[in-house]
């Protein structure tokens, strides 16, 4: 809502308060003023001039040579390019030395050999937006009414010596979508009076009800419809003050009748509509729901197809207006109109909202109906509009109105105790302070002991319950004046859940291991959603996505992390290690919420270590990432519950991928991105893992229990084995540990050779075996005996023999 500081003074005395100070006060008491625009900022030296002579410029077809009286000294010659400039006009002249918006300075100039002592201005040149300039002046200069006095300040005459407060209204404060509403608010803030505008109707004897009757078929959508008749109007421009007030509020002037309806819309917040009575097509107004598929052409010349959700005003047979949204081309006021049928009505906000949404038509009128207008202002607004039409369009107002009124107005009556107000706010107000606040708001209030009973005025439809009254008290008392305290009462220590704590451990660990945390989008494309999914489920689609790329909820994190790797690689960030924790979304049928499972994914590429001046440079590989995982599981106490099994996963290297099992259940995978995928994404070798973090964090960690440090020395024996290439180290290790139990405590791989010195299909793998007994020192003989069993088991179960 754009509020003119000058116009507002019609209703509230603003003496002693600048526009800026007012803006600050309004903001602090609850309505944010987003800005204060000084309309004449940077404008100087523009006066009303009278065009004495106009002739064609001798050397230019499109230029006019004008002799202009500017009220001081001799008339001056001005060259003007506007097509509509003519002799006898009163115009805005930027005299030599004048300043215009955008830092333009007017100097004496020569145009095609002719002297020009100034500039005749269009409204745009004076800083007004093209879309609010009256159509007839949109392509040329502005012409003042003849009563404008030559030599006076044109800017003042155009009402540009004003400041506009831009109010950002929250949906509850629809009352401030009107000058009067703002006036009540400002009066309450300042503790001053509201002066209501004047309406002096002098109706002629004829009755409006003899001209038209009203039938409302849908009273729920339209509880009040008032039709007034104004005859013998002369369509013409509205007075300049009205036009300029409309323009300052962002509305383009049209003609006196339309401008008056818009003026009242701004003044009262009540949308009105003027029909041409003679073009209405009948003497009956029928308000009803539209028929399915019914056609109707709105004022903007667009044919609309209606449904039964939409409310229409009809002449009994066809629509003449889409109720509360826009009138029709068929009954619009034109320059030939002599009798006006003026509609002042109350339409249901939901119905209006539906229509305005369905047709993409947001009008000043629809916005107000949607948010709610004051039901008590409908008639007053209609009467004042009729009065202004009599005054400024020479019309005669008929007695009374044709109307349908099924409206019941029940103002909210709310009792509240002083104790409650103070208890909720933490204040120590007394009843007089509270009473004074409601008096400033002009809310009726009566006090009985500790209770004050407040009747909310109908213009404040947002006041319904005690808490609304508490807010009124708080904001007018001043939020600044409310004390600062902290909640009292039983205070339990706050804490994270075990899950949340462990999630933080995981993040800390991974970052300590060299990975950066990434955060990516949950919405992705259908194609990417299922890639690398641990569990295949139906993708979850948005009903109305904004783009294909963000249309489906992800089933895995990796595709997004690979995008991160790609993005960075393309920007010379060649070595990269990132991880992400976040939810993936598993459908549970269409009616239930999906299962949200927290996953952990990581991707590494490029060099893992790069300490070049000492010659250390190591690219990432499978075992770097597996090592990180092993460390993670160790940190979470899960080492003994986790296994890695050679596996095939779509999109990963078939020979360099493992499934991760937790308690023998598959919870994720680790591997190299398939070379063909790497090629598609333009990546170097990239290793990744993704796992269900939920499964990991929900697994109970055993309580920490100290194990005594061995007091007796251990004996280590190394063995180099020749084994079949496909026998994995874990298999050999299991055989070793089983055969060597209980004396054999550890078996660790320390060497692997698969080169061409080996027989086809064989590899050499060496283990370091550690024997110990917690109770005593082992003898060589004892160890040798067990060691022989180990070698025998290896040969028997895996065909692995000592390397000769």
């Amino acid at each position, binding site marked *: 809502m754009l509020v003119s500081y000058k116009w507002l003074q019609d209703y509230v005395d603003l003496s002693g308060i600048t526009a800026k100070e007012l803006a600050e006060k309004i903001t602090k008491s*609850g309505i*944010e003023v*987003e*800005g204060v625009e000084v309309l004449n900022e940077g404008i100087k030296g523009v006066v009303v001039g009278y065009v004495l002579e106009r002739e064609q410029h001798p050397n230019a077809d499109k230029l006019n040579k004008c002799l202009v009286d500017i009220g001081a000294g001799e008339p001056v010659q001005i060259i003007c390019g506007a097509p509509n400039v003519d002799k006898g006009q009163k115009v805005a002249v930027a005299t030599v030395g004048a300043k215009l918006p955008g830092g333009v300075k007017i100097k004496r100039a020569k145009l095609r050999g002719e002297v020009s002592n100034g500039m005749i201005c269009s409204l745009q040149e004076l800083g007004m937006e093209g879309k609010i300039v009256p159509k007839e002046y949109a392509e040329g200069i502005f012409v003042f009414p003849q009563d404008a006095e030559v030599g006076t300040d044109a800017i003042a005459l155009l009402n540009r010596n004003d400041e506009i407060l831009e109010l950002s209204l929250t*949906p*509850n404060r629809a009352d401030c979508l009107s000058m009067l509403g703002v006036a009540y608010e400002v009066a309450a803030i300042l503790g001053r009076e509201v002066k209501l505008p004047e309406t002096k109707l002098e109706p002629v004897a004829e009755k409006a009800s003899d001209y038209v009757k009203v039938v409302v078929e849908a009273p729920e959508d339209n509880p009040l419809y008032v039709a007034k008749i104004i005859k013998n109007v002369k369509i013409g421009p509205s007075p300049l003050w009205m036009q300029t007030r409309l323009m300052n509020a962002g509305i383009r002037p049209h003609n006196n009748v339309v401008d008056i309806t818009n003026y009242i819309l701004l003044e009262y917040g009540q949308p009105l509509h003027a029909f041409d009575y003679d073009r209405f097509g009948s003497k009956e107004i029928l308000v009803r729901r539209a028929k399915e598929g019914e056609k109707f052409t709105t004022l903007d010349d667009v044919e609309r197809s209606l449904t039964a959700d939409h409310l229409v005003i009809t002449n009994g047979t066809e629509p003449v207006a889409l109720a509360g949204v826009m009138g029709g081309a068929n009954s619009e006021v034109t320059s030939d109109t002599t009798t006006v049928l003026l509609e002042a009505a109350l339409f249901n906000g*939901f119905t209006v909202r539906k229509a305005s949404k369905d047709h993409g038509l947001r009008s000043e009128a629809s916005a107000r109906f949607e948010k709610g207008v004051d039901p008590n202002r409908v008639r007053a607004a209609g009467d004042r509009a009729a009065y202004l039409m009599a005054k400024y369009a020479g019309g005669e107002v008929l007695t009374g109105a044709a109307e349908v009124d099924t409206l019941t107005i029940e103002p909210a009556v709310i009792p509240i105790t002083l104790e409650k107000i103070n208890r*909720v*706010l*933490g204040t120590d107000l007394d009843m007089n302070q509270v009473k004074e606040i409601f008096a400033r708001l002009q809310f009726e209030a009566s006090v009985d002991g500790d209770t004050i009973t407040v009747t909310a005025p109908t213009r404040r439809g947002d006041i319904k319950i005690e*808490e609304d009254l508490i*807010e009124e008290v*708080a*904001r007018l008392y001043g*939020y*600044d004046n409310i*004390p*600062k*305290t*902290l*909640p*009292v*009462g039983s*205070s339990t220590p*706050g*804490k994270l*859940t075990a899950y949340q704590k462990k999630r933080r451990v995981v*993040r800390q660990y991974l*970052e*300590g*291991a*060299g*990975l*950066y*945390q*990434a*955060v*990516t989008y*949950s*919405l992705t494309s259908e194609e990417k959603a299922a890639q690398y999914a641990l569990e295949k489920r139906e993708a*979850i689609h*948005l*009903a*109305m*996505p*904004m783009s294909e790329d963000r249309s489906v909820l992800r089933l895995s994190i990796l595709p997004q992390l690979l995008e991160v790797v790609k*993005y*960075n690689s393309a920007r010379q*960030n060649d070595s*990269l*290690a*990132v*991880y992400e924790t*976040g*939810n993936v979304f598993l459908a549970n049928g269409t*009616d239930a*919420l999906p299962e*949200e499972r927290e996953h952990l994914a990581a991707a590494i590429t490029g060099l*893992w270590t790069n*300490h070049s001046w000492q010659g250390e440079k190591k690219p990432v590989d499978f075992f770097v990432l597996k090592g990180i995982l092993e460390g993670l599981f160790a940190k979470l106490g899960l080492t003994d519950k986790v296994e890695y099994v050679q596996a095939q996963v779509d999109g990963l290297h078939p020979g360099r991928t493992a499934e991760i099992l937790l308690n023998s259940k598959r919870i994720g995978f680790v591997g190299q991105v398939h070379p063909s995928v790497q090629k598609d994404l333009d990546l170097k070798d990239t290793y990744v893992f993704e796992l269900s973090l939920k499964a990991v964090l929900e697994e109970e960690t055993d309580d920490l229990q100290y194990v005594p440090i061995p007091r007796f020395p251990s004996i280590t024996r190394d063995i180099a084995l020749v084994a079949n290439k496909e026998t994995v180290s874990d298999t050999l290790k299991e055989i070793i540990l089983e055969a060597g139990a209980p004396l054999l405590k550890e078996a660790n791989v320390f060497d692997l050779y698969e080169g061409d010195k080996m027989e086809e299909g064989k590899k050499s793998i060496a283990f370091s075996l550690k024997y110990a007994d917690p109770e005593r020192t082992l003898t060589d003989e004892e160890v040798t005996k067990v060691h022989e069993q180990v070698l025998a088991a290896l040969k028997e179960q895996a065909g692995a023999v000592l390397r000769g």
Partner: protein
Amino acid sequence: MQERLKELQAEAIEKVEQASSLKELNDIRVAYLGKKGPITEVLRGMGKLSAEERPVIGAFANEVRAAISAKMEAKQAELEEAAVQAKLASETIDVTLPGRPVKLGNHHPLTKIIEEIEDLFIGMGYEVAEGPEVEQDYYNFEALNLPKGHPARDMQDSFYITEDILLRTHTSPVQARTMEKHEGKGSIKIICPGKVYRRDNDDATHSHQFMQIEGLVVGENIRMSDLKGTLEVFAKKIFGEDREIRLRPSFFPFTEPSVEMDISCKICGGHGCSVCKHTGWIEILGAGMVHPNVLEMAGYDSRVFNGFAFGMGPERIAMLKYGVDDIRHFYTNDVRFLKQFAVEE
């Protein structure tokens, strides 16, 4: 003879003093103190001496030996020390060369902000509550006093999946669920961080996915002054002790009275600049006293219980706090961006 021994002592000591290596010193030792050395030779001539002279000379000879030996030992220590020093000197390295890099990652800036806020409130007795990102219309809107058709639903156009299921547009449904779980009994103190989604085109200041962190306190005697005090603690901790805060009345469907909190602009010190739109203030969060309808819908008796709630955007906080100029940086994950947030403050 005594004279000769004195001469030899002086000679040997001079040589020892001049010795420059351990080998040289050893040669001197062999030369003077060895079996074929001049001292032994002198002693061999002792037979010619009288019985009285013999022990005197013998003792003197031992003194000479001892003096030479002592000198040699001292010299040896000196030479050894010098050798050690020389060896160490030869091992000198350029300490200005870079160390072996330790691989380190760090929190995403949004996590950094969220954890900082979580920790602050945990210290004040709050717990961290989480909830689903895909929500029922009921918890996202209706339970928060936003019935179907409410105009305020326009304020946050949403991504629906079905008519009743959508991506949550704020973390407030976690509050609604938490209250419901309490079945109208007992007090609540929670902080709810998480991802939320709105129909916005991604640009420098909008993102269709972003983070939110909300707080909720419900109890039998919660006052608006408690909200004000709590928010001040938060603002000073996160933005600095020297920042002013200001509360303005506002509107949210789920709170009444409602509040917006501004902090004084750090860039211009409150005098007005383009960042604060020439107001000297920067809007930082929305808050208010929990609307009685919200309490009632969750099963609380609003005549007995009340509470306050507040909500803010970690992206906005990070942008203000660290001067990040484009919200998209948080989601493109350029490592040159991410690694700037390594420092623990």
